[in-house]
Structures are given as structure tokens and as C-alpha cells.
């Protein structure tokens, strides 16, 4: 029975609430004549909370709204991920040093719009909606990256992001158009069915596996589509924008790009991959899926190695975290490269690990930048003794980023190693293990600056904003607690990945 319009509308209630919240923030700021920045922030936070509530109250049974929006547990999990990041970004925006005093309305409007884009991105196998949501997310992000208007680095970041984004999405669109041409449908699930079916070869009349007949074209199309995803998750060689944009954009925006945008792009990649190349999708598809897995494994190895090696030489905290986030995209790709449910589960779990440790790291950057006036590692001299609470939290995030137990980052890495090796990618496990050693070196330069170097009187200590301190405390508890007892998240990951295969 086809669902009614009202039912469909109810299914996209979380997105609707978020979009309405975005408009409300914009209008409210206009009405308050830009004088009530904090209250606009509350409106944004309230709409995120309402959207989360709507998400949690959603009917768990998978459904499709308007013929193209898939509403299921997998999407819900990633939407919770995105919404939880948005809430943290709003909090960060309230305490960041480089946020302009004016224009709160525009900022929250753009941020929540980007959130709407991310919401749709993780809930579709329809190529048209995929591109539209990717563009919604992208356009809002370009403007956000340049939000510190007076700052040249911020303007540069926006321009770079835009130019790279336009090129990458263009290439992706081209790839998707080939897929559409081959199959005559925009629905990735249907494409898989059509490609797996038999067709008569027009020249000889012999029945052929369609996938095999169209093999090279499909391969080109999928690889081109991969460029768009690679750009969004900042995988080598589509990562060039990341360091400059991460460094130049205001820190809350960087946080959004590094966590929410990347997480949503991974969600879309997993869903798209599972829909297009399901296990048992015919001989040709299986062979292709194996090859694609090797390509992704190669990308993964390159991405983590490049990210870690480049991070070693960085002195700016945000730039260091940018390279580190490239490296973590490489780790996450390990699970995607496995091309099976276990691997995808490991990737989803790793994204949650990444959420805790990276939000924590960016929160600390915001706090330290207010104390030292810049984002250099060198200026942290001995700050660990003066700001003990935040710094202890930072050490926990650092061990998690390296992947040392007991932390969620360790369990995530372990899970990825296991999944990759179980899919015949033993070499990738060894590469990733070697990368962990390299990453220790640069992450612990931060710990060294905080604790091992003698204190400098030049740095003023100020108490962290209570909300920020509480948030960092929560993230720390999550990093250690979920590292020791990951059961609940593991169950959610397994459940959600089961839905897309």
C-alpha cells in the first residue's frame, strides 16, 4: 500500500524540524537586531534537541518516504551522530575565540542547513537525492569555512574548499550519469538487480551476466563516483583541501567538517556501496567488488600513511588535527575495503570512536587558543599543570587517537584490524599497525608540551567555561568507558549495518 503524503512528511520530521530551526534562528537574529547571540544559539540547540527527539521516537521499521528517502536504523544512527556533533559545535561556537560577534543568525542557519544536508545524505540510495544532499551540505560548508570574514586565512579556506568541491562533485556527477545511462534508474538498489540480471549480447545473442558485459563502464563510473566520496572524507589523493581549510576555518566549523561532514559522507559511502554491490549479487559483481576492495585498501593505506607522516612536521594544532583526521579517514576506510558487513560494522564503530576523541581534541584546541591566543603547540608550555582538568582529558583523547587501551580508539582499531585481516587484507593490518607508531610521535608532542616542558609565565590561565568543561569531561568518560565496555555501540553498529545489506 503506498503511503500517504502525510505519512511521508511524518517520516522526515527530524529533517523538517532542523530546517525550521535554521529559519527560526535566522529570523530571530534579525528581529533581535543581532544583539542576542546567545539566545540565537539556544534556538539552534533547541531545534537540534527537538530533531533528536523526533529521531528517537521514529518508527523503527524501515520505510521509504517520497520514493527516495530511506528511513531506517542505519540512517537514524548516523543522524544521531550528526545531530550530536551539531550540538557540540553550537557549544563550541559559544566559546571559540575567532567567532565574529555579529551574524549569529547566519551562522546557525548555515550550520543547521548543513545538518539537513547531512541528514538526507545518510538516508538515501537514490542518486539524485544523493547529489542534492551532498550539494546542500557542501554549499553551506563553503560559506561556513569563510565565516571569519576579516581573516584572510578563513577566506582562503572557503575558496579552496569551493574550488576543490566543485571539481570533485563534477567528477562524481559524471560517474553517476554513466551508471544512470547503463541501468536507466536512479535507485542504487535497483541498479544492483539490473546489473546482476542476464541480458542477451546484442551482437551474438548469447545471454551474459550484465555486469560482465558492462564491466569496464561500471568500473569507470564507480571509480569516478568514489572521487566525490574521497573528497568529502578527505582520502588521499583528494585530501589537498583539508589542511588549509581546517586551519583557516573557525574552529567550530573545522569541528563540523572533520566530524559531522566526514561521518555523514562515510555513512553515504557505506550505504551506496552496500546497495550497489550486495554480497551474492552475481559473479561479475562479486569479482568487481573484490577488485574495488583492493583499490579501497590501497587508498586506505596511502591515506593513513600520508596523513600520519605529514602530521609529524606540524606545529599548528588545527593543522596537525587536519592531517590526523586524514589519517583516521584512512583507518576508517580499512573497514570499507573489507567489502563485507563485518568490515562496515568496524568502520561505523570507528566513526563513533572518532566522534569522542576528535570532538574532545577540538574542544581542547578552543580552550587552549583562548588561553594562549594562538594555536601553536609550542605555546602550550607547561599548561598541563595550570589547567589540569582539561589537560588530563586531552591526554585521554591522545591515547585514544593513538589507539592505546583502554580507550575507544583502541577497540575501534582492533576491530578494524580484525575485519580487514579476516577479509584477506593482512598486509593492510601491518601497515595500519606501523602507522599507529608514527602517530604516537606527533600526538605525544602535545602531551610533551603540556607536561614535560617547564611552565611559561606568559600564558594566562583562565577557568574553562563550565559547559565546555562538562562536555570535555563527558567525552573523556565516553572515551574510556566505551573503550572498556563497547557492547552497546557494537550492538547498534551491527544492527544498523544489517539493514543496508
Amino acid at each position, binding site marked *: 500500500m503506498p503511503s500517504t503524503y502525510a505519512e511521508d512528511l511524518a517520516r522526515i520530521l527530524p529533517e523538517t524540524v532542523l530546517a525550521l530551526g535554521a529559519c527560526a534562528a535566522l529570523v530571530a537574529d534579525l528581529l533581535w537586531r543581532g544583539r542576542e547571540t546567545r539566545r540565537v544559539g539556544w534556538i539552534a540547540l533547541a531545534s537540534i534537541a527537538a530533531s533528536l527527539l523526533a529521531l528517537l521516537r521514529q518508527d523503527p521499521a524501515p520505510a521509504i518516504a517520497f520514493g527516495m528517502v530511506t528511513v531506517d536504523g542505519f540512517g537514524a544512527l548516523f543522524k544521531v551522530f550528526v545531530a550530536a556533533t551539531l550540538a557540540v559545535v553550537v557549544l563550541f561556537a559559544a566559546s571559540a575565540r575567532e567567532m565574529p560577534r555579529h551574524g549569529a543568525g547566519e551562522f546557525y542557519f548555515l550550520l543547521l542547513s548543513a545538518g539537513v544536508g547531512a541528514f538526507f545524505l545518510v538516508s538515501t540510495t537514490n542518486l539524485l537525492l544523493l547529489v542534492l544532499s551532498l550539494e546542500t551540505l557542501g554549499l553551506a560548508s563553503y560559506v561556513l569555512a569563510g565565516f571569519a570574514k576579516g581573516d584572510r586565512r578563513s577566506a582562503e579556506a572557503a575558496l579552496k574548499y569551493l574550488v576543490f568541491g566543485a571539481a570533485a562533485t563534477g567528477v562524481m556527477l559524471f560517474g553517476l550519469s554513466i551508471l544512470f545511462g547503463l541501468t536507466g534508474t536512479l535507485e542504487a538498489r535497483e541498479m544492483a538487480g539490473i546489473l546482476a540480471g542476464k541480458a542477451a549480447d546484442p551482437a551474438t545473442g548469447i545471454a551474459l551476466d550484465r555486469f560482465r558485459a558492462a564491466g569496464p563502464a561500471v568500473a569507470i563510473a564507480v571509480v569516478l563516483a568514489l572521487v566525490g566520496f574521497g573528497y568529502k572524507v578527505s582520502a588521499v589523493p583528494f585530501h589537498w583541501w583539508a589542511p588549509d581549510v581546517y586551519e583557516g576555518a573557525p574552529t567550530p566549523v573545522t569541528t563540523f567538517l572533520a566530524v559531522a561532514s566526514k561521518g555523514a559522507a562515510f555513512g553515504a559511502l557505506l550505504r551506496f556501496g552496500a546497495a550497489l554491490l550486495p554480497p551474492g549479487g552475481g559473479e561479475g559483481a562479486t569479482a568487481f567488488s573484490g577488485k574495488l576492495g583492493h583499490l579501497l585498501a590501497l587508498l586506505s593505506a596511502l591515506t593513513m600513511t600520508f596523513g600520519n607522516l605529514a602530521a609529524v612536521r606540524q606545529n599548528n594544532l588545527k593543522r596537525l588535527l587536519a592531517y590526523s583526521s586524514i589519517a583516521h579517514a584512512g583507518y576508517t576506510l580499512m573497514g570499507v575495503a573489507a567489502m563485507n558487513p563485518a568490515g562496515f560494522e568496524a568502520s561505523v564503530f570507528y566513526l563513533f570512536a572518532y566522534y569522542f576523541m576528535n570532538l574532545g581534541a577540538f574542544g581542547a584546541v578552543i580552550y587552549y587558543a583562548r588561553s594562549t591566543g594562538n594555536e601553536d603547540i609550542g605555546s602550550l608550555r607547561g599548561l598541563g599543570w595550570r589547567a589540569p582538568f582539561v589537560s588530563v582529558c586531552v591526554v585521554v583523547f591522545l591515547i585514544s587517537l593513538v589507539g592505546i587501551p583502554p580507550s575507544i580508539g583502541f577497540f575501534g582499531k582492533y576491530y578494524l584490524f580484525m575485519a580487514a585481516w579476516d577479509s584477506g587484507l*593482512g598486509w593492510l593490518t601491518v601497515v595500519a*599497525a606501523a602507522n599507529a607508531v608514527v602517530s604516537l610521535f606527533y600526538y605525544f608532542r602535545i602531551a610533551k608540551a603540556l607536561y614535560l616542558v617547564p611552565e611559561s609565565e606568559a600564558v594566562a590561565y583562565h577557568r574553562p567555561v563550565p559547559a565546555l568543561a562538562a562536555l570535555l569531561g563527558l567525552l573523556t568518560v565516553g572515551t574510556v568507558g566505551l573503550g572498556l565496555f563497547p557492547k552497546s555501540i557494537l550492538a547498534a553498529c551491527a544492527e544498523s549495518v544489517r539493514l543496508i545489506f
Partner: protein
Amino acid sequence: MGWLSSIDVLSWIVFLPTFGALAILLLPSAAKRAIQRVAFGAALLAFALNLWVYLVPFDRTKGAMQLVTEANWIPGFDIFYRVGVDGISLPLLLLNTLLFVCAVPASFTIEKGVKGYFALFLLLETGVSGVFVSLDFFLFYVFWEVMLLPMYFLIGVWGGPRREYAAIKFFLYTLVGSVLMLVALVAVYLDAQPHTFSIPKLQELAQRGALDGRHLLENGILLGLPFQTWLFAFLFIGFAIKVPVFPFHTWLPDAHVEAPTPISVILAGILLKLGGYGMLRINFPLAPQAFHDAGTFLAVLGVINIVYGAFVAMAQTDFKKLVAYSSVSHMGYMLLGFAACTTWSVNGAMLQMLTHGVSSAMLFLIVGVVYDRAHHREIAKFGGLSQRMPLYFGLSTLGIFTSLGLPGLAGFVSEAMALAGSYERFPTFVMISVIGVVITAAFFLWTIQRVFLGPLNEKYATLPDISAREVVSQAPLAVLCVALGIFPVIVLNWQGPAIAEFLRLLAR
């Protein structure tokens, strides 16, 4: 529910220090005395429990694991919280808890960040104890890694002038070993049928030859080498870095010289033994074929450690560095004993871990005493200290003679057993090792002469003798130096059956 209700006495030994650390975090930073008392109390309580386990519930006639507790930790991943002890791990666990008790009074001189220091110190104890009681490879790895962070900060924050370098060097070296172990851990798990992390089960599988990589690699061969060889190599490098075995030893002198005295005590006394323990518990039993093939190679490494370590120690001018290199030499006996793999040699090697744990800990405390007073450690600049510090001279002589292997003291028994037991298989290597024994005697006697005998250096005429606090730290170790020398059965009887079991696992 399983988890909390089944926490038994071994878990208490492991986690009491953690609770101590949490309690310390709740105390105000200014309450130095209270922090020190909590730390001492937690360490002492863990030791008392451990001693009780050693004497009462532990059945020393059995070679199997005892006091085993098992609880499902991460369901669906075959990861269990499995702990238990046998005659190999229990004496080492006891040494560990004892050394932490001895190291607390030695830490009372720490002035900076006392709260952080003792919290990390107790966390370190949890990590080490946890490694000794783990019967699950995953749990073992977690505890193994828990040690890294406290150690990094303990050296890096409270260490000497080159502490930053020493701390990160220690961390990087150890992490290289750890990630190799992690790769081996994943491989072993995936290859075991059925999948398991249980160390006893994996040992049984390996003994039957079932851990041959056939479920993981084509024919169990990778790049022309069998899976067992790879597994052995990965695990061995991981543990060899910790021991440390030549050529992975270069982090040790740096870490020792820069670490504060109590941390050197822990490092030499117990952390090095973790490498040896890992070999006995995991490395050799999981890759028995490769172990037998590598026997001669291991013996050569052992001999290099013995002789090279001794020669380098002789060349040192810094008292602490000398003791550090003597550790490298002493760990060679252990490796040689393992490599020979006879009942005598393995018993000797195990005992060597314990006696060296006692004697090296004592020597580092001794170095700490003189460093606290003179603020340097240059051997050549002292002289005649025995005239002003008779009690200190007595204790130092005891420690040094134990370390150089004087008959009647602890070091002699273990070295003699390890060498005599190895003679059967490696007569030539044992002969060469004797050079190491002679050199060790030479540099230690020379040190006594330069530091304690001869004319008194007037600069140090006013040094006070060893204090009551320092005696408290050293007394238990001094007693053990003598006791283990005269009655080594207080350990041998405990470890014997477990070592017999170990040899059964390795039998071809």
C-alpha cells in the same frame, strides 16, 4: 551480572592500586602526607593479599592454573576477563607487589606534582599485576599497554635532564613491540579454530600443531616462511624490546638514567621481567616449532647480552648507567636458559628473573641514596664513603655481591643453575658466558673500590648515613638476597611443577 560478583582475590590484587589512585585523585594536592599514606597503604595491602595467596590457597604441587576466574567481557568477540596464576606467574606477581611497596618510601623525596606522581605510580602497578594474572591474550595486551602511559609521564615529568628524550624513546620502542604483538594477536585469534583468546587453549592448540596459519594463509606460508616463524618473530621482537635483548636494548640506559630512583627500581626490578614472562607464557608456547628452530639463535643473543652488556657496563663512569648495563648482561642468562630449554636451565632462568629483580632493585635504591646526597653519580668522584656511611656500605656490598653472583647469595644460585642447565645443549656458549661472569665481578668490585674504599673525598666528609626511610625500602630486598641464596626452594618448589608443564607444552 557475572562481572562484579565474581571479582576474586587476584582481581583485588590487580585493582586495589587503581582504587588507591582514584582515592588520591580525590585528595587535595596540598595534602602530601595523606597522598603518600594512601599510596603506601594501597601497595602494602596488595602485597599482603598477594603473600597470603602465595602461602595459603595456592597449591604448589600443581602445575596447572589456579584461582581461575572467568567472565564474559565483550560478548560476541570471544573476549573474556580471565585471570589465574601458576607457579611461573605467582612468584613474579609477588616480586612486583613487593617492589611497589619498597618504591613508595623511596618516592617520598618527590616534591613536584605528588598527586599526579602517586596516581600514575599506582596505575602502573595495576598494569603490571594485570599482565601477570591474565589468561586471556586480549586482556594481557590491554594490561601490557596500560603500563605505557604512566611510565611515559613518570620518566618524562619526574626524570632527569634528558627526560623528554628518554621518555619518548621508551614509549616509541615499547609501542613498536606492542603493535607487533597486536598484529600477532589478531593473527592467532583468526587462525585458532574455534576462535579464542584463551592462553591455555591457544597453548594446547599450538602444541598439537594446529596453530599453523592454514586458516589464514595459503598452506600457512607467507613469503616463503611458515606462519609459525612469523608468529614467533613478531612476538619475540615485542617481548625482546622489553627484556631488552641486544640489539633492542638502547632505550634502557636512557630510560634508567633519566628516571627517578623509584621508577628505575620498578623498571629494572619488574618491567624487564615482563619480557621474559611474555616469552614463557605466550611467545614460546604459541610458536613451539619455531622456538626449537630458533634455539641456537636465541642462545647467541643471550650470550651477546651477557658479554656485551658486561663490557659496556665496565666502561661506564655513571653509577646508574653501570647498573643499567649490568641488567642487560643479567637478562642474557635468562635468555640463554630459555634457549637451552632443559628443566634446570628454565628453572635457573626463572629464578634469575626473580633474583635479578631483587638485586637490581636494591642497586638502584643504593644509587639513589648517594645521588640524593651528592647530586651526581660519577663513580670516579667518590671515594672512601665507607668511613662515613658504614650501614650504607654494608647494604651496598650485599646488593653488589648478590648481583655479581657470590655463592651463598641469591644471584649465584640462579646464574649457576641457568649456566649448568644450558651446558648440556650449548657447551661453547656457556664457556663464553663465563667471560661475562668474570667481567661482571671485575666491574662491580672496581666500583666498590672507587666509591667506598680508598681515601675519603673531603667534599663528602659530612654526608649523613642511610636514613630509616631508606632502610625500610631496602631491608626486605636485603633479606631476600640472603634468603634466596640459602633457601632457593622458597621459590623453586613453587615454580617447579609449572615449569614442568611449560616444558610439556614445548615437547616436540
